[in-house]
């Protein structure tokens, strides 16, 4: 898992990589766990002929697949595990933060099917793929680690955050960036990026609390990168 997921600054062991590998999650062993079809299905209680069979999982841990940052990864989860917990503790993706753990602060924001979603209020089974009869495909999850390219090229929104000092303590930043980048991608796909308004940015980050109060810099970063003036590489308007 760590090999597959951790930051790919090749060569020596990074401090972060070391902490992840020496953690108690022992996620790596999960890769070896072949698919154990622990999913029980029964169609008997289904009255409508078209209805999918009823699927029972747990309460103990079951092997599932997650689709995270474009890769299919194996995990072993209990029905009660939240997506935020599994990302951090099993997959080593600790960029996703847990702040309030009640969906109120936005620090855990990831994309599910491309939409900003509170990972702390999402059970991992809601997005996991399950094997066996009645199994289903995993839903794509994107975390802050998946936003930059494998070569380390930052997303334009990340560049703009750097250029405009759009973070102080940084705890809200991964969630804030995920909300902003989703807006950026939506506007870009509509060909409307240059028309991005301050109101749209404020709306997009309404669910991301920043205790340091860096909101004005976040808005400035977004507006300038949308207009192609603030990604840091071309000088930005600091």
């Amino acid at each position: 898992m760590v090999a597959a997921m951790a930051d790919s600054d090749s060569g020596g062991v990074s401090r972060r990589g070391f902490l992840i590998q020496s953690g108690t999650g022992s996620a790596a062993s999960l890769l070896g766990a072949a698919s154990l079809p622990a999913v029980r299905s029964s169609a008997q209680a289904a009255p409508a002929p078209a209805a999918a069979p009823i699927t029972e999982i747990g309460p103990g841990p079951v092997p599932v697949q997650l689709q995270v940052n474009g890769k299919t990864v194996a995990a072993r989860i209990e029905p009660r595990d939240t997506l935020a917990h599994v990302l951090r503790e099993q997959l080593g993706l600790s960029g996703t933060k847990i702040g309030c753990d009640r969906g109120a602060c936005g620090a855990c924001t990831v994309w599910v099917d491309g939409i900003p979603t509170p990972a702390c209020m999402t059970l991992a089974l809601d997005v996991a793929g399950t094997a066996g009869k009645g199994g289903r495909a995993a839903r794509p999850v994107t975390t802050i680690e998946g936003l930059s390219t494998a070569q380390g090229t930052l997303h334009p929104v990340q560049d703009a955050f750097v250029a405009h000092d759009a973070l102080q303590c940084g705890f809200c930043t991964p969630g804030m960036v995920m909300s902003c980048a989703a807006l950026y991608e939506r506007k870009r796909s509509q060909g409307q990026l240059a028309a991005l308004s301050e109101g749209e940015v404020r709306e997009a980050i309404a669910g991301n609390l920043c205790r340091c109060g860096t909101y004005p810099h976040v808005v400035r970063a977004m507006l300038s990168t949308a207009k192609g003036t603030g990604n840091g590489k071309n000088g930005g308007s600091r």
Partner: protein
Amino acid sequence: MNAFTWVEVTTAEQAVAQLSAARGGSALLKAGGIDVLDRLKEGLDAPERLIVLRRPTAGSKSTLSEISEIPASRLPDSITRLLPAGNAGDAPQPRDCLRIGALVTLAQIASHPTILRALPALAQAAHAIATPQIRAVATIAGNLLQRPRCWYFRSADFHCRKKGGDECFALDGENEYHAIFDNRTCAAVHPSGAAVALLVLDAIVEIQTASGTRQQRLSAFFVSASQQGGDVKRENRLEPGEVITHLYIPLPSPDERSLYLKSKQKQSFDWPLCEVAISVRRAPSGAGSLLQAARIVVGGVAPIPWRAKAAEAALLRLSKLDIESVRAIAQAASDGARPLAKNGYKVPLCQGVVAQAVMQILSNA
């Protein structure tokens, strides 16, 4: 959070069967899961089985996750008979309705073209709920059925009346966000903003039962402890094992308008201090009054979405829009209020949001 078995279903019939099959054990229904996870994490609920009602996977369709327009000609009689009559004494006529499935998210409602155009109060209410992240996940039925947000109820440390105890800790406690109406048994306010809008739009709720479906006006669905059939441990008339499947909302005629306003402490997102939805139907020109129908429902002030009947009556008498008339309507909106020690501000706030809603809707009508 306790360990539980995940039981995944894709139809309301399956959900009802699973809920009632949990003999002896406990089962809890989850859709979007926002309120359910909150309760599980706080230990307020500890089910053995979590019944997860999901959208069917891609390829198969379900009305549970759809918004669709149902023409009057195809409206079931069971819905038609619950529509508001055009004039008192008339039999209800079939009308074009919007049907919203229980699993439709608040984000879908807030951005749906027909809802934005024809049912603005609902679009505005859905948009004002929680955060973009939560609206992407939370369902309309879950919003209606979420448990109250009273901090005593939400804390496992307080065995309040809603949890079978014999005390409402808010009555003599920290009650600044609590009810000013109907608050003597339990002072928690009803948490659903969508309900406030749906009530002024005469919504009808359809419910899957063990033996079939039943339909009910949403106005009769919510019930407080002091009302007939009320039970302090519940906020509505959904029986154990039943599941909401759809909402039906009559599409308005061209002379009808609606809007929703929310007053909150924090502007980015927050629970309402007070919220209001209003719908009006213009009177034909030459009539003595401006309006022939009006509904005002206030949220954040009572254990149920609160119909401001005295304000509605004052609004119906209105013959021209002036500040004195608006003030009288606003005063009527707080008729019967009995604030607690720390929520007296909600009385003028309630009057203020109602006055603002009346002025806005009449200047646009």
